[in-house]
């Protein structure tokens, strides 16, 4: 009898359609569930062992639990070119992309995930061009092109109220879209499993959220089970975990810098630009450095990584987001360095244009992974408490 249910139906290298991706993920999960050698590597496998079948909701859940550490691929006796062709990092990445598309708000914007690198690039370019054009047309040329120092010099280029309205609105909409996506994902994942449909209750929900936050904040599942991911190659390494930490915490420090600055402005009545030794600028410098070293490290790792477990359909999405973060930090630090020169006006405009590009694409790109992964980790914390491997 031919082993038709175990060998892949489609060419592993060809681009896959939705139904093919789900069927392929289900096929591979059935192999993994009969093997279980990887169960110490991460949360995906213990979660898998609580299931006997893998519907779309289960797959979305498991795919977002996966941190793409690739230990399961490097340690798989069935990895291609074995005829079973188990390549979980790749197929789960494909399922993750589907889950991003499915949960986008508004729904029509889910399409942006199909060629995400291009979409994010075009949107950012349009936003940036609009900012530069707007500044050139509307701003006082002396403020834009001259040397301006001291209080209010930024706001002479772009008025403070305009900044607040534009960025407040963009950030608010992004948060709403991300919130809706997370709720949609929470509801959609794991449909049809034993633990679904039960009222979880507030207590376990809080505990699970705390657990999920902890696991996400420490990147617990980028440690491969102890020694690090098998990324970029076969030998375990903590490099990706550290570069991701630099990137994520760099981003958070930059965000904190903005929040403190807002507090300074409205709470204390102190206007930008702030001194290099001030809290917002120190936070921004530290964050900016993290947001330069981290993304460059991640790009370098991607460049040298084993291509087989990588999902070629995701390269654009990941690269676009990493480049956008890098552009944000580089222009931000450049602005700080050159804010007392004639370059300030244009640099400020470009920096804000890129930050706006980042904000409007936040809910339609790689940034979403953090939210859906948190939700998946929270669900895992709940399942682990009550569940049992089958």
């Amino acid at each position, binding site marked *: 009898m031919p082993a038709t249910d175990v060998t892949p139906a489609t060419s592993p290298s060809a681009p896959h359609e939705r139904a093919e991706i789900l069927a392929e993920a289900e096929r591979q999960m059935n192999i993994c569930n009969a093997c279980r*050698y990887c169960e110490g590597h991460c949360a995906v496998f213990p979660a898998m062992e609580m299931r006997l079948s893998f519907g779309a909701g289960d797959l979305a859940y498991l795919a977002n639990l996966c941190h793409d550490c690739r230990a399961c691929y490097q*340690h*798989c006796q069935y990895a291609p070119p074995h005829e079973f062709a188990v390549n979980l990092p790749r197929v789960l990445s494909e399922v993750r992309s589907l889950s991003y598309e499915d949960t986008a708000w508004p729904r029509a914007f889910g399409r942006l995930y199909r060629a995400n690198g291009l979409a994010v690039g075009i949107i950012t370019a349009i936003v940036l061009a609009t900012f530069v054009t707007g500044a050139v047309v509307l701003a006082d040329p002396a403020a834009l092109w001259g040397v301006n120092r001291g209080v209010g010099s930024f706001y002479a280029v772009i008025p403070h109220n305009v900044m607040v309205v534009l960025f407040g609105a963009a950030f608010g909409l992004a948060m709403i879209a991300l919130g809706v996506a997370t709720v949609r994902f929470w509801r959609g994942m794991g449909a049809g499993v034993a633990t679904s449909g039960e009222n979880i209750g507030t207590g376990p929900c809080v505990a699970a959220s705390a657990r999920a936050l902890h696991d996400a904040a420490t990147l617990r599942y980028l440690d491969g089970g*102890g020694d690090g991911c098998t990324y970029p190659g076969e030998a375990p390494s903590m490099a990706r975990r550290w570069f991701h930490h630099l990137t994520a915490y760099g981003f958070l420090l930059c965000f904190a810098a903005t929040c403190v600055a807002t507090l300074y402005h409205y709470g204390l009545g102190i206007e930008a630009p702030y001194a290099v030794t001030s809290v917002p600028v120190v936070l921004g410098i530290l964050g900016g450095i993290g947001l330069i070293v981290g993304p460059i490290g991640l790009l370098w790792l991607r460049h040298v990584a084993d291509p087989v477990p990588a999902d070629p359909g995701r390269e654009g999405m990941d690269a676009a987001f990493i480049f956008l973060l890098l552009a944000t930090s580089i222009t931000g630090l450049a602005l700080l360095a050159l804010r007392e020169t004639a370059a300030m006006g244009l640099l400020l405009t470009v920096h804000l244009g890129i930050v706006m590009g980042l904000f409007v694409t936040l809910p339609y790109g790689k940034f979403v992974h953090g939210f859906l992964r948190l939700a998946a980790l929270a669900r895992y914390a709940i399942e682990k408490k009550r569940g049992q491997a089958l």
Partner: protein
Amino acid sequence: MNHNELNGESFDVVVAGGGNAALCAAVTAARAGARVAILEAAPRHMRGGNSRHTRNIRTMHVAPTDVLVEAYAEDEYFDDLMRVTGGVTDERLARMVIAQSGAAVRWLGNQGLRFQPALGGTLSLARTNAHFLGGGKALVNVLYRAAEAAGVRVFYDAPVTGLDIDGSRFQAATVGGSGAAPARIEGRALVVAAGGFEANIDWLREYWGAAADNFLIRGTPYNRGEVLRLLLDADAARIGDPKQCHAVAIDGRAPKFDGGIVTRVDAVPFGIVVNRNAGRFYDEGEDFWPKRYAIWGRLVAAQPDQIGHVIIDAKPVGRFIPPVFPPVMADRIGELATRLGLDPIVLQETVSAFNRSCQPGEFDHNVLDDCRTEGLAPAKTHWARPIDTPPFRAYSLRPGITFTYLGVKVDATARMQMADGHPSDNIFAAGEIMAGNLLGKGYLAGIGMTIGAVFGRIAGREAAARARN
């Protein structure tokens, strides 16, 4: 590395094979200062022989460890080995392997291998076996990295096709391989760790007849026994019954080679197993499955056409590890029989007779429960419940050969013995190719890796020392 580059080269220690035992030997010899070459028959992605498919190593320990519960004393380990082999073992070598098993496992950990507590479905091994985090391929990867770091030169696609042995002294190996001209590699010592002959169906047929054509080989297709044959032809002392092997019953739809762990079917204790004639042939509830699964390969091999079929109903689904192949399903036993190509009337009668003989009891698959048959031959002594809840499911079984026991005789320094009773001058053996010294028959889960690691390290040490003199 292409082996053509090394035609005429000379090494201190040549290692034939590329699995756990070969790597333990190569790393140990290289660390002792020897120039070492590994000749691995498989291409890189298939490297590691059957070690690629393993998941744990049996080890004695006097106290709980981070991954092992309680203790597993030397004497208990030895008693377990005596029980499964019926005493057909070299007691001195067995005690030595057991005594050194703890050190071997620690050594593997020092190379970078990580362990984890017993996997789901293997809880019965939580006390005796240390499980590799990520499985056997993780072990293989760790050891190849250690070998390369120690300066070992590794050649893939490099099967040994000839051995130049002068009397009992190894001179050189001939390496064939894909499309390349044969290369001659000289060595001051040879470690043979190239596995058994289970993937050589023609050789199996010598002992099993046409039945061998229905065997499935669970592991690497590269264990064709070529090195073993060369050694036996050069008058090495043979050990082990050629018909003895580790054989489990696996899904009949598994690929001919390399299907590994996922082709297992753990449903046997929950139902009945019938042969081609739709009749039962053995007590499916004799003992816990992990203790019994290794006998079912031979049981099925003894049935007509070497095929069996596990029949279960809907009740036990979810109580055993889901097999990788979907079951054949039907709402009626007759229909199921037709789909399996069995006589529907006979299977119906077999199931009815079994159902009638099931005694009332309290079903508990975690203990040897009191659900048994009465007046049925053969009896099912535990977990016997009527097969009456549709849909009915069936998994077909074939003998799945893991490895063979025929090998070369060694002494406690891993030195290969010659047929005339003298030791070889400079040939050492480790792993499957000499496991028959300890395993006359039967099997103890995870002891193959123990033998490979302990004898691999001894062979590496001794071969390096021999090369220096």
